[in-house]
């Protein structure tokens, strides 16, 4: 508490000297888009302020208009948008100035950090040239000076060997490093306010924690205002000073992070927070219950022994995605497969579906040896396995009516006649709580969560003994995720299928799984029952994973953050922060602009 006190008083001192006026303010901003089917009212009169050194989080689910609101400040909305109201950036109303002047403002006064660092960086330009571009455009530094500054910036955001990195291309860096480069570009012109649009959504949880540390030290040291757009309540609790909650274009609640997250007033905020699964709270959240009693002598649905899966590469030795993995799944049991990207968790899921071959080891699926099956036998085996993929928009054929999508397994395996197939589809639609009328509709006519429920229905069409679920809820909004998980757990209790649940989200695994397998770089780090692995992790990697997952309560999250920093220090790691002296940074920036003018 003492450190927090001194921190806040320190900031008051600094900002007291300058001024406390907002660097970014929205006044009754209203946006409409003209589309083929009439106009869409995306933002309905939003007013919001961001002060220097303050993080304001805008939270909301898809379609809430949070990104559109922030884009009005950059004036980067497409041509069919009609904007009303005032947006003021560092005292200038962006709605009224000429395009040339607006270009000067972008980067210089207001900068942006994007969601997906791979697409935000140009793949054919070196890191260095992308860093110098904005500095040269805005006359901050030119030529050799700019190159030198680019190296400094990379060092500030904590990229090792910056001299070497400036000559590299985006694909040579890891996801977290790429996002650091995007942050370096954003601060290169010392903007007063930064818009961070879902800056950590595409990143792994441990990398997310580092990037959030970096952003936090950025606003503390440089006194930059940050407008943070996110759907993740944990990130909000970790970063935000104030929170604005948006729903369908309207700002429904605004206040300090503490008050909004711990004592929400509006029904929507209450519902939203109620549907966030919390790590460590275990079972029983959101009315989701899982059958706990397990038959320890049940047959094995999946039995892996020393499984190795390799991807062939041209001209190089094969890449080992899964290396010597051993675990099993019993009938009626949910096993959570956890790990970060590149851990091989999805690869194991795909191997279980017979989509990729194994290089060596043993894979017994429902009692059959998967690796020695003939084509016809494999087809017979597939009848007993269901599958749910991550992205419901991609896993349903856009040109097939929903009813046909669900009936597809019955048609392929020639089960029943037309009438009985239709009846089965109606039965399944009831089970996933969708109206029967969607039978003749197309996937694009329903929204994400409804589509994922269709995927669930399709997976259960043949009453499978085993279900492989590959990140089934990570593409969904939290309130929608809660509903899908609830339906899933009810169906599991009813049909008692075994399930291999692949996920990166520990809190979802905590909610559903009986056993947990933690993977890293294709190897099993730790496995055991849920309470053992998540409650009392033994291995360093598991501890890191659990420590990095944010919880949606600012006070608790601060405690967790400090614990995590302690853990990192004890493991001999550095805490990520912006490695600069603020005065020096501002002075260097001011000097270079003065030189430019002179």
């Amino acid at each position, binding site marked *: 508490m003492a450190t927090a006190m001194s921190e806040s008083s320190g900031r008051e001192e600094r900002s007291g000297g300058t001024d406390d006026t907002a660097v970014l303010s929205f006044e009754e901003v209203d946006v409409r*888009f003209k*589309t083929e*089917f*009439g*106009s*869409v009212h*995306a933002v309905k009169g939003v007013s919001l302020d961001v002060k220097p050194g303050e993080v304001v989080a805008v939270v909301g*689910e*898809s*379609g*809430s208009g949070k*990104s*559109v609101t922030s884009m009005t400040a950059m004036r980067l*909305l497409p041509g*069919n948008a009609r904007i009303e109201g005032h947006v003021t950036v560092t005292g200038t109303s962006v709605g009224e100035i000429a395009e040339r002047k607006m270009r000067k403002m972008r980067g210089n006064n207001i900068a942006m950090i994007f969601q997906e660092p791979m697409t935000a960086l140009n793949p054919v330009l070196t890191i260095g040239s992308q860093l110098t571009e904005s500095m040269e455009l805005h006359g901050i530094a030119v030529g050799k000076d700019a190159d030198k500054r680019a190296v400094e910036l990379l060092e500030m955001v904590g990229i090792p060997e910056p001299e070497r990195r400036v000559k590299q291309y985006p694909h040579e860096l890891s996801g977290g490093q790429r996002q650091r480069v995007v942050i370096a570009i954003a601060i290169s012109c010392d903007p007063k306010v930064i818009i961070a649009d879902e800056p950590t959504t595409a990143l792994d949880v441990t990398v997310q924690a580092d990037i959030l540390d970096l952003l936090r030290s950025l606003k503390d040291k440089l006194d930059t205002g940050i407008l943070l757009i996110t759907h993740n309540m944990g990130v909000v609790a970790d970063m935000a000073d104030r929170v604005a909650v948006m*729903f*369908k*274009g309207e700002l*429904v609640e605004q206040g300090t992070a503490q008050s909004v997250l711990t004592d929400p*007033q*509006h*029904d*929507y905020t209450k*519902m*939203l927070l109620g549907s966030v699964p919390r790590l460590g709270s275990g079972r029983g959240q959101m009315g989701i219950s899982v059958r706990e009693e397990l038959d320890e002598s049940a047959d094995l649905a999946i039995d892996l022994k020393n499984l190795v899966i390799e991807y062939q590469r041209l001209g190089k030795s094969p890449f080992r995605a899964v290396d010597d993995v051993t675990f099993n799944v019993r009938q009626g049991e949910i096993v959570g497969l956890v790990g970060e990207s590149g851990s091989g968790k999805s690869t194991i899921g795909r191997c279980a*579906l017979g*989509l990729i071959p194994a290089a060596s080891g043993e894979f017994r699926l429902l009692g059959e040896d998967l690796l020695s099956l003939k084509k016809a036998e*494999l*087809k017979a085996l*597939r*009848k007993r396995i269901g*599958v749910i*993929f*991550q*992205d419901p928009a*991609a*896993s349903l*054929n*856009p*040109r097939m*009516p929903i009813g046909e999508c669900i009936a*597809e*397994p019955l048609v*392929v*395996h020639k089960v029943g006649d037309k009438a009985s197939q239709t009846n089965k589809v109606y039965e399944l639609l009831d089970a996933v709580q969708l*109206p029967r*009328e969607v039978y*003749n*509709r*197309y996937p*694009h*006519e*329903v*929204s*994400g969560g*409804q589509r994922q429920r269709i995927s669930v229905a*399709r997976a259960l069409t*043949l009453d499978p003994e085993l279900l492989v679920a590959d990140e089934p809820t990570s593409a969904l909004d939290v*309130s*929608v995720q809660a509903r899908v998980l609830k339906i899933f757990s009810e169906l599991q209790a009813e049909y008692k299928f075994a399930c291999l649940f692949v996920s990166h989200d520990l809190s979802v695994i905590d909610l559903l799984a009986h056993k947990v397998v933690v993977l890293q770089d294709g190897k099993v780090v730790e496995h055991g029952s849920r309470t053992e692995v998540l409650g009392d992790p033994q291995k360093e990697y598991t501890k890191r994973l659990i420590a990095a997952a944010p919880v949606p309560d600012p006070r608790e999250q601060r405690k967790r953050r400090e614990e995590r920093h302690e853990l990192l220090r004890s493991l001999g790691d550095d805490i990520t922060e912006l490695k600069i002296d603020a005065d020096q940074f501002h002075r260097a920036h001011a000097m270079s602009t003065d030189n430019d003018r002179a």
Partner: protein
Amino acid sequence: MADTSSGSAGDRPEQDRPDAPGSGREELSPVTGQADPEAPHDEADVESKYSVEKQLDFTQKSYSQNQLVLRRFFRHKGAMIGLVTLLGVTILAYSSIGTAAFPGWWDKSYRSSAMVVDGGRPTLSLFPPTWGEYPFGQETTGKDYFALTMRGTQQSLLVAFSVGIGSTIIGVTVGALAGFYRGRVEAVLMRATDLFIVIPLLVLAATMSKGLGGGIWGISFVLSILVWTGLARLVRGEVLSLREREFVTAAEAIGTPSSRIIFKHILPNTIGTIIVSATLTIAVAILLETALSFLGFGIQPPDSSLGQLISTYQTAFQTRPWLFWWPGIMILAIALSVNFIGDGLRDAFDPRQSRSED
């Protein structure tokens, strides 16, 4: 806001519609405290009220993807003008002189010669609008040029559409097989495609159609087996990307056989490419047939085609320009309108979707 007050329900998105009065949720704004706290309040309704999921409205018309495409197509001005022109030309060509199966309303035949009247000048005039005896004039031997042009148009359209259909079937088959099976199948099929591309098209078409006797079906066949290459490459590319999509993996994972995956899951998703390419092939085929006939390797007299008419009377351009203009205008009208239709279809299948939600 004229559209919010008078717009029909179908044109407005969900969130703009006011709640029904008396439903217990007629708050004008979701900001709390604006409604009477004493009013009946439905607690169980909170979840559905604040759901970001679409409220499924089954009273509204359902649009399948194909219907959406058609809707966009019929709103495309250029395509509509093209479609009307093409239909007009087709109806005119077939109804005027008829075919072997049915007689037309025009009394003269393109085969019989007659006395040349007024140097063969066209009798068609706009002021005052009169049709006259020989609207498009007469050629050297006194044959009615209107009938000849109509016959030529019929033949050209026939060639164009049969080439369009034939080359599409070949192109789609080759492209789909190569894209789906990869490996050796792909290598053989795509090298064969390359082979067809490097052969000079007109030379081969000329020699082959000569060998087949120069009939209209011969020409259609020859052109069909020569112009499918572009479509085959396009379809292969589409199939390559589609077979990596998750819904194909999902189909594979439930044990769907390959033929069903190709016909039920992959090809319906390439229909846009196929239709657009087929339309543009039709335009190309018209021009190719014209070129072949012009060079003397196409349709032979006494039968007529537009290219052959131009070729026959190219020397008359100075003295009797109408012998050149009429077939020229027909070629232009057909090729342009088909191209417009193709453009419209492409826009309809691939609208540059603008960002409307975040």
